[in-house]
């Protein structure tokens, strides 16, 4: 009995932690900035694909001895890839649309369509090349000393760094496509990320088998949550982010660069989507549509938890995870075998993954009838407009 409940709890937490890591970035972007980013799922997809590319790179003879640690490297790679694409997205499109969330929603949906087709029709080697070029192009202006940039010939340096980053991107794309032939062709087919040997199998404790992949995802989620909380509460930039969230005009008056804060917030939110992509790639095959199946669930988590509240997001995702598992796997019946028959047949009716989703979403809608702004609503009085 205890074992059954424990197993159910573990499964629920496992489902919930995938939801949480996926929703964490969204909670930042949507909760703090009020930006609806429907391309969040596609940023996850990019993270998953970068895991795949990292894995293939680690299969090359030079890196073969370190193959087992590719997951850790791919976490960073995925964060960077998704963050770069997210920053590009913010600077090019979303910046024009602050204050009109419905328009942002439509524009980011357009972005997500483009990203999906991009992955299908551009070979992964060249996609990586583009991203590497973008990454260098974005980082160089940050590293170059200030007096160099304020120099008379700063334009020359800018053009030089741009050309350099494009060159590096091209070279790396070329190198990737020649050394790993699989990356040189565009394909719409799903790819598989194989977990390293230490992540296969399970851990036996108290007569229950815990799959190591699930445990790793839970650990990744915990680390991500702790570092995000630390960043927002303790660091200087986190404080600035919170200040801008509370009162944009006032923060600007006090000398906080809201532009930088916007870029940073969006970059971190997107980067977390990339990390979620790593987690997702460990669970199943990776395809252009992999992110789309998570996005609605993520939004439900954020809405249920209360917008702009990390604790609410955490509780909501675990609640949804545990409920999905309880209903979907029909565990209620095995926990309580002699249920009265009409109830039992109802439970049986919902005991599939898709029907569990139906019931969970319906329950969320019912819950929102009583608490329209989620578990932890934002305090204070404001005129809704």
């Amino acid at each position, binding site marked *: 009995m205890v074992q059954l409940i424990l197993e159910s709890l573990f499964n629920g937490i496992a489902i919930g932690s995938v939801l949480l890591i996926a929703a964490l970035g969204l909670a930042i972007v949507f909760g703090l900035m009020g930006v*609806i980013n429907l391309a969040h799922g596609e940023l996850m997809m990019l993270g998953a694909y970068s895991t795949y590319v990292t894995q293939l790179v680690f299969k090359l003879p030079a890196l073969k001895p370190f193959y087992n640690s590719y997951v850790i490297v791919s976490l960073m790679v995925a964060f960077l890839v998704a963050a770069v694409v997210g920053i590009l997205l913010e600077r090019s499109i979303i910046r024009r649309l602050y204050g009109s969330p419905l328009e942002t929603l439509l524009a980011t949906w357009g972005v997500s369509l483009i990203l999906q087709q991009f992955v299908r029709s551009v070979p992964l080697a060249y996609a990586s090349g583009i991203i590497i070029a973008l990454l260098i192009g974005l980082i160089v202006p940050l590293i170059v000393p200030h007096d160099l940039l304020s120099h008379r010939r700063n334009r020359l340096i800018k053009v030089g760094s741009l050309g350099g980053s494009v060159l590096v991107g091209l070279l790396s794309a070329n190198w990737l496509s020649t050394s790993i032939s699989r990356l040189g062709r565009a394909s719409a087919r799903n790819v598989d990320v194989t977990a390293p040997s230490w992540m296969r199998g399970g851990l036996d404790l108290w007569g229950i088998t815990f799959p190591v992949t699930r445990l790793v995802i839970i650990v990744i989620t915990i680390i991500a949550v702790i570092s995000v909380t630390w960043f927002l509460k303790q660091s200087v930039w986190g404080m600035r982010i919170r200040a801008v969230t509370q009162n944009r005009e006032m923060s600007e008056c006090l000398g906080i660069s809201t532009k930088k804060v916007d870029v940073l917030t969006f970059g971190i939110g997107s980067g977390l989507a990339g990390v979620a992509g790593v987690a997702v790639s460990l669970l199943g095959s990776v395809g252009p549509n992999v992110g789309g199946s998570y996005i609605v669930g993520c939004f439900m988590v954020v809405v249920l938890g209360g917008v702009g509240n990390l604790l609410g997001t955490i509780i909501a995702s675990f609640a949804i995870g545990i409920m999905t598992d309880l209903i979907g796997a029909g565990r209620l019946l095995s926990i309580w075998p002699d249920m009265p028959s009409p109830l039992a047949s109802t439970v049986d009716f919902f005991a599939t993954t898709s029907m569990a989703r139906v019931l969970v979403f319906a329950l969320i809608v019912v819950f929102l009838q009583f608490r329209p702004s989620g578990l932890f609503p934002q305090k204070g009085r404001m005129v809704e407009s």
Partner: protein
Amino acid sequence: MKKTLINRRLFPLIIWITIIASIIAAPSLLPVFRLNLLGRYLSLAIVALGIDLIWGFTGLLSLGQGIFFALGGYCAAMFLQLNSSANLPNGIPEFFGLYGIQSLPFFWEPFKSPLFTFVGIWLIPSLVAALLGFLVFRNRIKGVYFSILTQAALLVFFNFFNGQQKLINGTNGLKTDVTELFGQMVGSDSMQRMFFWITALLVVFAWFFARWIVYDRFGNILKGIRDDESRVRFTGYNTTIFKTIVFAIAGGLAGISGALYTVQSGIVSPQFMTVPFSIEMVIWVAVGGRGTLLGAILGAVMINYAKSLVSEALPASWMFIQGGLFILVVTVLPEGVLGWLQSDGPRNLLSRLGVSRPLSTYPGLEEKSHDEVRL
């Protein structure tokens, strides 16, 4: 001022004449395949009109119109399946046999009657919409939260219809093209021609209906809700009721549209309830011009026609074009093509090109007073 007056009065008239002329000419000019496609796109124009009512005029962006669209389609398909399964074993549609079902599920029963079906096609979706809308609007959930909730509701319905093999044939959907109506195959050329006419007529009806709604005081309240809901509420109107009614109307229009689309495409399946399809519907309205009823119709037909042409020629590029359209419309043309043409868009373009003419009076004061509703 004369020039803009001509623009505003004559321009929609010209478009209407073109539309009606092409609808009348289409059956004799186009091959049956193209005619069928045009008929489908015209039926999609009806759901676009509904979206224009709730989004363009009331400011509610629903990403779940696919629910009502598919419900209408299922109503029609269930009736057609029952209508032509009298000679089959047990007198029930064939697919039930695959899952070992002997008797008809209870909710299929009323669809034996044509009258119930004709009413149900629009009444059932609008009742579902009214219920869903009431639950959401009652709590003053609005803006993006409304959009997210409708999307979640869409996913709920999709999962339900997709998972229930034994009730409605699950992911395979219900076929209608091999069923019979009035002793003829629904998929036959003559029937398809007839459906085209019915669709064309209903589009015009739906347009008149929508225009009647937005032209009246009711429409003014809708626009008030769009522009400043709190103020409308403080003036003493119960905005929940108005929003529920208009959402139900849009749901009913979506149901009619879905039924017409189903009989012309030959199948209804949970694919009608996927997330991308419902967002696509929004972009038809956005490109055509939200807040302009004609724009919704034109947007739906034109974009779908372009989609089929592009997908035939370059299958991979449509997603890029569609994604680009989303971004372009939102950032550059927020009023849509027709809205841009009817507002000062052309004149702004002219003045930007350096061929502008000086304004004689403060812009827009004269016409706006007696012509609040744009076509």
